[in-house]
């Protein structure tokens, strides 16, 4: 297999290094001595999948700390897929070059709604039936996890089971249980697994609909299956497993650097943010742990850059001493520290300068909306003054390029808010040009708002493609010189919205879209809206029912049975406050906001930085 690949297949494809494996720090375990064999399947290309932290964590976790085995597999690029199909090469893992059918569990990481067709394509390339009901005892269990699994229903036709929430504790437990139930028939096996906390087996629930198309009921079909599935939480992130020896890819991957996960969760409470709701509460790692992890990772990889990842890194209570310490310890070897998208308010001159001492990165800020009114609606607690101060500080210290993230199509948005974005950009440029010897580069990346499940905006309608296009045209006509605007494709956002709040009836649409030829829908060069339009027509499904229809509070939502810890009453209250333009503060700064996660999961906000004081 390997010989044929290297001789006959790989010389004919683009970027063959995607498919060779054998990277530094790869873990190849003894197949026969390992207990359960699982493959971690990422439904996108290698360079995207290898950038994903969750995958790095699970890979090290299972291979280093258990007797199970976890190998890797990514979606082959279409040129490779074509040759694999022609030559009859099944989808294989990069560690042992075994076909996916040799594994007991195939776990897909669900990071993005539109990776759906790639999942079907990968199953098909592996020779595994795409529908779960077609699989027999001979086939692997198909598992899904990751943020998109918080609304698993659109994917339920294709998966045997889902794991909801943090995987550090849940995955080893699941693999242990898979081994225990190994010899049971498939149905009984799934019934046993469905009783584990955090596990959802879609075939064990019966769904009925009202005449208006809305969900009427969703009930387990067996008394031992829970009515609600509770997400899993790692209570203590500081002692949780994190890899010191991540795989070092040969090719340049999207995030090609060492990564520290400084904390998990964010409770700033931006009302559009899915991750901010479902990964509560905030749990930090201690400075001591992070410094040790940085040393180990840099020593084991030789990376020239280390990134501080989280949903809002500037909110990490130890961010200043951490950055200072990392620069002091590793700066002399030319190792830079990267901060992903910065919170506008928490940004300080001090920190900017610490980072800049070694390596200048493009400054990225996310005001998200153009007017104070709309920023209050979405609870992005950033004032114009804070933004301008941050920008001024940055340009003063020598940045020449700034990128700002915005969204259009937010609830209550008017033309004034669109003008607000343009005015804000112009002011940023004016400030920059004042301090810089040459004109500064100001770029804005403008996304279309997609309401997500488990957020306060889960009841809100999404703008139609036509409305979004009008808004894009409006802004394009009014854009100013020296400012670059780039817009997300409103048709892509529409499909994201369809799946983000969809139900299990969408399985047919995903299947038909794939049959029509859809793969790599997240890649503009392969995105064909017409494949999806045709699929929707064939399945007889009106997408506006899912995308542009406002939901009532009384409606049973397809994801209500997933317990994220956040109460529906809190989400509703937040939605109502949004419409009144009232903000809600971070519970670390003010009183408890009553989201519900701490009491319902018996966990606490866990702050570990030096300035965290009493915590």
């Amino acid at each position, binding site marked *: 297999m390997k010989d044929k690949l290297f001789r006959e297949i790989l010389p004919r494809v683009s970027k063959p290094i995607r498919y060779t494996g054998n990277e530094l720090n790869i873990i190849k375990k003894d197949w026969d001595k390992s207990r359960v064999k699982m493959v971690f399947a990422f439904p996108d290309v290698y360079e995207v999948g290898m950038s994903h932290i969750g995958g790095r964590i699970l890979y090290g976790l299972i291979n280093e700390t258990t007797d199970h085995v976890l190998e890797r597999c990514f979606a082959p690029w279409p040129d490779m897929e074509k040759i694999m199909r022609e030559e009859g090469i099944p989808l294989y893992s990069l560690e042992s070059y075994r076909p996916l059918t040799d594994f007991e569990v195939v776990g897909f990481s669900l990071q993005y709604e539109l990776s759906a067709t790639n999942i079907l394509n990968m199953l098909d390339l592996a020779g595994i039936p795409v529908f779960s009901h077609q699989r027999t005892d001979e086939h692997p269990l198909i598992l899904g996890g990751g943020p998109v699994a918080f609304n698993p229903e659109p994917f339920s036709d294709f998966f045997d089971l889902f794991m909801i929430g943090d995987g550090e504790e849940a995955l080893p437990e699941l693999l242990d249980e898979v081994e225990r139930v190994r010899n049971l028939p498939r149905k009984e096996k799934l019934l046993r697994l469905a009783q584990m906390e955090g596990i959802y087996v879609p075939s064990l629930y019966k769904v009925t609909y009202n005449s208006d198309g809305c969900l009427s009921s969703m009930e387990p079909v067996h008394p031992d299956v829970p009515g609600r599935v509770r997400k899993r939480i790692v209570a203590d992130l500081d002692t949780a497993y994190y890899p010191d020896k991540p795989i070092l890819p040969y090719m340049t991957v999207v995030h090609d650097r060492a990564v520290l996960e400084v904390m998990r969760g964010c409770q700033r409470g931006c009302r559009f943010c899915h991750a901010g709701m479902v990964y509560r509460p905030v749990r930090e790692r201690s400075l001591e742990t992070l410094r040790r992890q940085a040393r180990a990772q840099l020593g084991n990889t030789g990376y020239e850059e280390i990134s501080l990842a989280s949903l809002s890194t500037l909110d990490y209570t130890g961010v200043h001493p951490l950055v200072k310490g990392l620069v002091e310890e590793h700066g002399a*070897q030319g190792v830079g520290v990267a901060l992903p998208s910065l919170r506008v308010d928490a940004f300080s001159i001090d920190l900017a300068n610490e980072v800049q001492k070694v390596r200048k990165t493009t400054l990225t800020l996310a005001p998200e909306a153009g007017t104070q009114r709309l920023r209050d609606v979405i609870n992005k607690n950033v004032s114009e003054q804070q933004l301008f101060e941050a920008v001024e500080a940055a340009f003063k210290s020598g940045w020449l390029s700034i990128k700002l993230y915005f969204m259009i199509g937010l609830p209550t948005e008017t033309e004034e808010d669109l003008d607000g974005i343009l005015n804000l950009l112009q002011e940023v440029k004016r400030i920059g040009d004042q301090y810089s010897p040459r004109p500064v580069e100001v770029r804005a990346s403008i996304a279309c708002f997609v309401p997500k499940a488990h957020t306060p905006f889960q009841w809100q309608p999404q703008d139609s493609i036509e409305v979004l296009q009008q808004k894009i045209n409006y802004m394009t006509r009014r854009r100013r010189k020296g400012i670059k605007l780039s817009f997300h494709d409103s048709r892509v956002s529409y499909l994201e919205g369809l799946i983000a709040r969809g139900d299990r009836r969408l399985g047919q649409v995903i299947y038909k879209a794939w049959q029509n030829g859809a793969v790599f829908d997240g890649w503009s060069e392969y995105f064909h809206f017409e494949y999806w339009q045709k699929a929707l027509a064939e399945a007889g499904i009106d997408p506006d029912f899912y995308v542009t229809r406002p939901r009532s509070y009384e409606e049973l939502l397809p994801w209500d049975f997933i317990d994220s810890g956040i109460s529906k009453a809190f989400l509703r209250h937040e939605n109502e406050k949004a419409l009144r333009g009232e903000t809600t503060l971070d519970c670390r700064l003010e009183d408890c906001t009553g989201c519900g996660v701490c009491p319902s999961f018996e966990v606490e906000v866990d702050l570990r930085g030096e300035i965290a004081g009493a915590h």
Partner: protein
Amino acid sequence: MRIRAEYSIGPELRFLSNLDTMHMMERALRRAKIPFALTEGFNPHIRLSMGTVLPVGLWGKKEYFDLELAQAMPLDELRDKLNQVLPAGARIEQVRPIDDNAPSLMKAVNCAAYGFLIRMPEEDISNICQNILKSDSLPVRSRGKKKGVDKDLRRGIYKLDLQPSDECFCLMIWVGTGEPLNIRYDELLDLLQQQGVPSEAILDVFREGNYIRVNERLYSPLEG
């Protein structure tokens, strides 16, 4: 202190691009804690310069890079430390100090030797070799920048050598690289096919080495 290293890239790493190889070396230098020199400025990087590009798909026996050290160290130690951390398939063979003013590899190297592992009757392949050497001109469609234009490979082919190797033959071809005439390995493949070597008879291609050719004599970059 400026040094020049000769390294090999084995068949298992043949799909690395030049950039991939450079990153592999940089990261190995960091893991091995070699006292490399950094460039000045906001975006410091290791003062490492890679030699001529090894094409994706080929493995190489004698490839080169230059590196500047901030502190001198025994060069055998440097080689051993790097070899301890390099992935299987990549190996530093020799390291030599070079003059601070020595021309860069990209400027100095002007010849490469490519090896083709061929399974053919001896008579056929040896006739083909003689035919190549006898020809006054060997036009092949250019694969380089001037695509679609014919290029005469003859005056860029310096030497041929045919040796038996495990039921096959290893054909080595020394060709000009860089200025004035750059000959690519895929143009040589086209030439061999033109001369009657079926593509399935070519089992492997590698680069045997890079050379500095002066007055028809070949020198190793480690000598210059």
